[in-house]
């Protein structure tokens, strides 16, 4: 497009002549447009490269660990492949794949394989199914105890992941596998415990057995987890609830009777002990008093003996008189009967009364 044929050229083409002003402007504009669009493309490309590499950054939280798979293979051998909390970088897909694993978070699975059927709402509300119903086969779960009773048990297992590589890359659904182990632990433990042990007498033993079996199984299956806690719940079948309650009441009653008997025993024994002590103490006191008074008596006797030997009659009369004075001071009623003139004995009538009325003055004739 060198010539514009619309207008005549009397002189013919002239080499070295500058292009027509119109052509010039067009190509310049085109060039400018191209250049600026190249700039835009360049900027966009640089931005894309930045975005591409920038998108490789990712953070790992404090309760997480991460593994980078480069072409499907973990970067780093064994446990070294695990990245801790912080900012990390990986090539974007499809070169690298990031797998983030929750690690210190406590995981939880529940086993309801041995529990009666509950709707989700009932479970949430903690409601019981009305008592007296029978089991619906295929819907209500149960376990068989060692003494071939049927009861319901359920368990919840809390655990955390120790070996994230094993837990994530070797199991399609590790938590389901743990749940299977827990289901098995319930059946296995129930098969060794009697119904009354599970429900009442040895609850901790049963719980430990479940936990132990679950731990054994997950160890054996190399799940890469540590069990933190295990909760077990149990109940008698709904239909037999009343019967189990009656046994419970009878057991309570028996314990109450035994308690009462024991407290009676304590009472009787401590009372007997006390009265035994009283009896012996009294005897000791009596013995001591007796011996002491006899000794005092003997001492008095030895003191009085020389006087008595000198004047026996006088001594006796003096002592008697002394005693009588003491007696007469103490005695409440004193009745003096003078001798009758004729020397005959007086006739006296007494009304015997142990407690003479107080208001009656002492009769002194």
């Amino acid at each position, binding site marked *: 497009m060198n010539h514009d044929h619309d207008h005549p050229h009397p002189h013919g083409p002239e080499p070295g002549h500058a292009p027509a002003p119109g052509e010039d402007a067009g190509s310049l504009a085109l060039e400018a447009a191209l250049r600026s669009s190249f700039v835009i493309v360049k900027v966009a490309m640089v931005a894309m490269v930045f975005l591409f590499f920038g998108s490789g950054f990712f953070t790992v939280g404090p309760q997480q660990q991460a593994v980078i798979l480069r*072409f*499907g*293979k*973990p970067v780093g051998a064994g446990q070294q492949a695990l990245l801790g909390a912080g900012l990390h970088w990986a090539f974007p897909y499809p070169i690298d794949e990031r797998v983030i694993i929750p690690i210190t978070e406590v995981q939880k699975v529940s086993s309801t394989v041995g529990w009666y059927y509950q709707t989700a709402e009932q479970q949430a509300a903690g409601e019981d199914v009305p008592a007296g119903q*029978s089991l619906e*086969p295929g819907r209500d*779960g149960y376990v*068989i105890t*060692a*003494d071939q009773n049927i009861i319901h048990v359920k368990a919840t297992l809390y655990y955390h992941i120790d070996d994230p590589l094993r837990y994530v890359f070797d*199991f*399609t*659904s590790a938590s389901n596998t743990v749940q*299977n182990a827990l*289901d*098995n632990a319930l*059946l296995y433990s129930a*098969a060794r415990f009697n119904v009354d042990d599970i429900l009442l007498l040895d609850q901790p033993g049963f719980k430990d057995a479940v936990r132990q079996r679950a731990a054994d199984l997950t160890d054996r*299956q190399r799940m890469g987890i540590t069990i933190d806690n295990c909760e077990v719940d149990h109940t008698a079948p709904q239909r037999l609830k009343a*019967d189990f309650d009656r*046994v419970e009441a*009878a*057991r309570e009653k*028996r314990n109450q009777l035994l308690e009462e*008997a024991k407290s009676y*025993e304590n009472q*009787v024994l401590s009372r*007997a002990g006390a*009265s*035994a002590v009283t*009896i*012996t103490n009294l*005897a000791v006191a*009596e*013995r*001591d008093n*007796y*011996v002491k008074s006899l000794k005092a008596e*003997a001492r008095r*006797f*030895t003191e009085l*003996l020389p006087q*008595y030997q000198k004047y*026996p009659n006088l001594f006796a*009369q003096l*002592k008697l*008189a002394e*005693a*009588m004075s003491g*007696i*007469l001071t*103490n*005695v*409440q*009623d*004193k009745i*003096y*009967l003078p*001798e009758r003139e004729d020397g005959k004995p007086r006739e*006296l009538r007494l009304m015997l009364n142990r407690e003479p009325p107080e208001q009656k003055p002492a009769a002194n004739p």
Partner: protein
Amino acid sequence: MKRNVLTLIIGAVLLVIFALLLFVFQVRKSEVAVVTTFGRPVANLTDPGAYFKWPWPVQNVYKFDQRVQNFEDKFSQTYTKDNFTILTSVYVGWKINDASAFFRQIPGASLPAAQQLLENIVRNAKNERIGKHALSEFVNTDPQEVKFEAIEQEIEAAVKNQLSTNNYGIEIEFLGFKKLGLPDAVVQTVFQRMQAERQKYVSKYQFDGEAKAAEIKSSADLSAAETVNNAVAVATRIRAEGEAEAAQTLPVFQQNPELAVFLYQLDTLKLSLNQKTTLIFDERTPPFDLFRNLPANPSGK
């Protein structure tokens, strides 16, 4: 020139990426893969990483999950050795360990097909092994008699044996019971038995409580009486000691029994004629004989 170089580089990069997409594939850590050339397996890849292949239609890659998968069989009836019917369900942890065998043997190389196969193998193994055990070997009050775990292991061994002889490219990592049950009719009789048992316990506790309480009470009474009797015996001995000790003072009184008796009588008199006593006397009782015989003056007689 500069622009050309850049364009070339970009073009080359794009070409490389395109080539990589065509010629390279990844095996993820959780996977195994089989490479086929015109439909014939030629490579069995178990290690993760990037691998080379000829593009379709020359070579194809089939990837399989090699992680442990969970499988539960149907809750189904089996007869025990002693002709009880029990219902069992087991869980199995299985995985693909040989991708090319799996690819060859399993129809469509699909997981459902593999699980169907497992279902059959497990059912046969269960029927065979459980039929060799009595019900009392599943549950028993004597833990020594419970063969629960042994039965699981037998079933596991039988399943493993089946899988390896047929070379399905599948192995099982573990197997255990997930559910045990009894047929509905049996459940009803079990409930009746349990009810009777509960009734037995009720009367046992009633009787037991009363008998034990009575026993405790009577033995308490007995030992209380014994304690008191012992104390009485001890007291008697103590008093006897007193008597013995008192006897040592007898020689003192023996010097003059008359005085001893007199003093004793005197004391008795004092003790007996105490307060709240009415004393009746005449003038012959000393010292009231004073009323009768006043001493006479020596000059008066």
